[in-house]
């Protein structure tokens, strides 16, 4: 376990573990956190895992970046960013995670709290009835082999053809809802069988659909570009690629175990493939299939959420009030080939973001026109029952963290301890007493996700803003939560 004296302060929000900490470190580790979150980061093995990445992954560029919501993962820490040189660096499935393409989507309605308040219970029921968790049973969508192929290659364009999306939706999704270079032929039959019944399902764990309210706007121009105003009702969706991505990650982690270069790694889940090898390229192509599956999964759930809003509010208010308009959709578990400025030079790199969000600054050509002047929207869900944030990427995130920032509150307490300390039924009653309507698949699962098991999301946001990795746009508070 690292100690505070192993880190060198650079500024109040940036800490460095220099390469002198371990003779095998190729690059330093940089943690972006205030003092309080630094103390949390030192409590588990997260920083040691970041050091292990700095030791093990060939072709690393600059530094391994660690976000303030970091916590211990498997192999790589959750909240880590590692960039490897293209094409002679490496790619690691563990640097993306098992839930490939896990991410967040934000939608905004024209409803105010006053308009929605009398209907929140019915709305929670309608969302819960229409959005299957899929846990152990799969979903309701019938997906053929041809459909799954198209989902992987076309991403959300498939959903548009099927009537689950609007043309406007596509413009407001990272990579326009389809990562290029996906190849269904590089996905195992087992992943296909596992993924097909699960498209359009939420899953369990920390995945959720949350109805929220824009409590405060901090940046009028950016909020206006996103259609956010104080007092408007929002919907946030957090899920990923379900069993499809889990199986792809498992398949490639297993395949890599036999490669000679993984021997002697500090952790078997750090297994990697050189980008230039067939295995490395195959993983990238399969990973992009799962990333596209995840975009479509959130799109289908959006369709289900829109149906729920229509069911509750049709005939009560005009459609423009209850229609859910997409603000943005992003992945926080992915690897992307991007160009960044490192040491004064433009370098093409493969950026692993595991529990970290892309946060491109204003003017970046990859951003849709509407967001190019203000920067990329960044969606930071808090723990259940607490606030969430909308941020935007900055020049600072480009210069200091490969265009990346935090992804959430980040766990601080183990699931086993949370279950011992929190009773699901008591937590449910407490949230209901606070006016938050909760629908949960399991009381035990609810206890594991108790707010006390997470860091304070406001500290996380203070840290990334202080470190210059993002700018505040709006703070959201929850009204209803649907958990698988």
């Amino acid at each position, binding site marked *: 376990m690292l100690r505070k004296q192993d880190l060198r302060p650079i500024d109040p929000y940036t800490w460095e573990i220099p390469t002198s900490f371990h003779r095998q470190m190729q690059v330093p580790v940089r943690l972006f956190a205030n003092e309080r979150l630094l103390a949390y980061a030192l409590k588990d093995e997260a920083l040691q895992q970041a050091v292990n990445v700095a030791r093990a992954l060939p072709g690393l560029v600059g530094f391994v970046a660690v976000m303030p919501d970091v916590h211990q993962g498997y192999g790589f820490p959750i909240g880590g960013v590692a960039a490897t040189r293209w094409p002679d660096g490496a790619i690691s499935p563990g640097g993306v995670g098992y839930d490939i393409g896990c991410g967040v989507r934000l939608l905004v309605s024209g409803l105010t709290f006053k308009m929605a308040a009398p209907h929140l219970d019915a709305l929670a029921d309608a969302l819960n009835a229409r959005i299957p968790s899929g846990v*152990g049973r799969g979903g309701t969508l019938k997906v053929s082999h041809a459909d799954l192929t198209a989902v992987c290659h076309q991403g959300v364009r498939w959903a548009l053809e099927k009537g689950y999306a609007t043309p406007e939706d596509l413009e407001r999704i990272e990579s326009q809802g389809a990562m290029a270079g996906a190849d269904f032929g590089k996905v195992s039959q087992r992943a296909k*069988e596992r993924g097909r019944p699960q498209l359009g399902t939420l899953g369990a*764990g920390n995945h959720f659909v949350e109805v929220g309210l824009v409590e405060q706007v901090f940046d009028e121009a950016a909020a206006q570009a996103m259609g956010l105003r104080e007092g408007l009702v929002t919907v946030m969706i957090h899920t990923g690629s379900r069993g499809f991505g*889990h*199986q792809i990650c498992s398949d490639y982690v297993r395949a890599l175990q036999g490669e000679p270069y993984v021997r002697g790694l500090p952790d078997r889940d750090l297994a990697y493939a050189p980008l230039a090898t067939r295995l490395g390229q195959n993983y990238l192509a399969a990973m992009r299939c799962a990333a596209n599956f995840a975009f479509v999964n959130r799109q289908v759930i959006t369709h289900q959420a829109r149906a729920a809003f229509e069911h509750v509010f049709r005939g009560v208010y005009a459609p423009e009030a209850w229609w859910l308009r997409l603000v943005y959709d992003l992945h926080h578990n992915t690897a992307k080939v991007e160009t960044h400025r490192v040491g004064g030079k433009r370098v093409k790199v493969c950026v692993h973001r595991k529990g970290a969000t892309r946060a491109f600054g204003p003017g970046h050509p990859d951003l849709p026109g509407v967001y190019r002047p203000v920067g990329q929207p960044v969606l930071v869900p808090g723990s259940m029952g607490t606030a969430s944030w909308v941020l935007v990427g900055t020049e600072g995130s480009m210069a200091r963290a490969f265009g990346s920032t935090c992804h959430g509150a980040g766990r*601080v307490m*183990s699931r*086993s301890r949370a279950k011992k300390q929190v009773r699901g039924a008591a937590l449910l009653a407490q949230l209901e007493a606070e006016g938050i309507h909760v629908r949960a698949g399991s009381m035990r699962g609810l206890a594991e996700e108790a707010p006390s098991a997470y860091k304070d999301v406001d500290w996380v946001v203070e840290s990334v803003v202080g470190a210059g990795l993002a700018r505040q746009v709006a703070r959201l508070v929850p009204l209803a939560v649907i958990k698988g």
Partner: protein
Amino acid sequence: MKAGFREREHTADWALEVWAPTFAALLREAARGVEQLSGVEVDEAAPPRRRLLHVLASDPETALIEFLNELFYLRDAEGWWYRPETLTWDGQTLRGSLLGHPVRRMAKEVKAATYHQVQVRSTAEGWRAVFVMDV
């Protein structure tokens, strides 16, 4: 040694420690631990389904992780939860049969068993393992 398992502290995921007198019993206990932690409820009245298991694994850690991942694959692909009937590992291949029932409901879903810090060791009393699952 009597077979058993207990949950270990891990910030975000599930870590299990498992012990048993034989390696086959260790795998069976690991599956039982996962089933219990996940709160799997199956339809015991439905006619069971049998599947043969064949997993290449040249070390006990790989045998354990790939055995569990086989159960997760079958759970999602078929909607059935399988319990091991017979298991033998000859140092290269894990073979056996699994008996499955339809899943009625589950409290929690494991995404995968990981190789992160996996340990399997043989002791004078039997076998012990520690492994982490992504949830």
